[in-house]
């Protein structure tokens, strides 16, 4: 038993371009079904591509970059910087006397710049009213589905240094 159609005695061009309207309905339906199946194959290929990317993923290396000096900002203060490249704006917030957090400033919804809302102690995206927690960058409210990528910080010798990114797919 063959997988697909029986070998036809008529030439392919006669098979695919029938004379009778009744036969044409079958050809149209079969060709449309073939198109849908090929679209399904494309979706499967997309999933395989994601699988290959996740299996062969290498952790990117990030540079060490001084961000701010200790005491440079007041508690609740904010400083903008770019990390890991000049095209990646980030926001640094001093949340306590000895605690700092930094996140990518690009909203995970449509990449608008988020800013720190001191009164509510949260990060806000003004474009579509998306709100993120200052504590961990998680979504509090609004259309974003993913948390803000967090910048890993290190305090050494009175200097705050960015050393990497968490929660970002490279």
């Amino acid at each position, binding site marked *: 038993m063959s997988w697909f159609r029986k070998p036809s005695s008529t030439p392919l061009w006669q098979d695919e371009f029938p004379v009778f309207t009744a036969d044409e309905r079958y050809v149209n*339906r079969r060709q449309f*079904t073939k198109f849908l199946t090929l679209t399904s194959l494309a979706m499967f290929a997309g999933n395989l591509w994601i699988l290959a990317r996740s299996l062969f993923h290498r952790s990117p290396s990030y540079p060490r970059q001084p961000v701010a000096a200790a005491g440079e900002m007041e508690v609740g203060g904010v400083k903008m910087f770019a990390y890991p490249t000049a095209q990646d704006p980030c926001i640094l917030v001093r949340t306590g006397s000895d605690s700092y957090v930094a996140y990518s400033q690009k909203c995970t919804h449509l990449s608008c710049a988020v800013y720190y809302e001191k009164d509510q102690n949260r990060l806000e995206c003004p474009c579509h009213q998306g709100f993120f927690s200052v504590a961990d960058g998680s979504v509090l409210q609004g259309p974003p589905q993913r948390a803000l990528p967090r910048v890993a910080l290190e305090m050494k010798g009175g200097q705050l240094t960015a050393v990497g990114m968490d929660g970002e797919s490279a």
Partner: protein
Amino acid sequence: MNTNPPQNRGVTAIDGAMVLIVILLIVQIWLLSATLESYLAGHREAAVPGAIISAILFAACLGLYRFVDRIDSDIRQG
């Protein structure tokens, strides 16, 4: 007694198969977008089940296409 004219034989079955394929395709498109969203969020563990389910959906679509192809062949070649 079968009142269906000969030129309509199998058309209902083909239409039913096409509807099923469209439904499977919608599920597969949603699955791809959900897997991509998870991957971009750093949840790489979603990639394996996403690929497996997508393979199953593609196999089902291929089976339905084979069904349509066979009906077309059987009816038009007698």
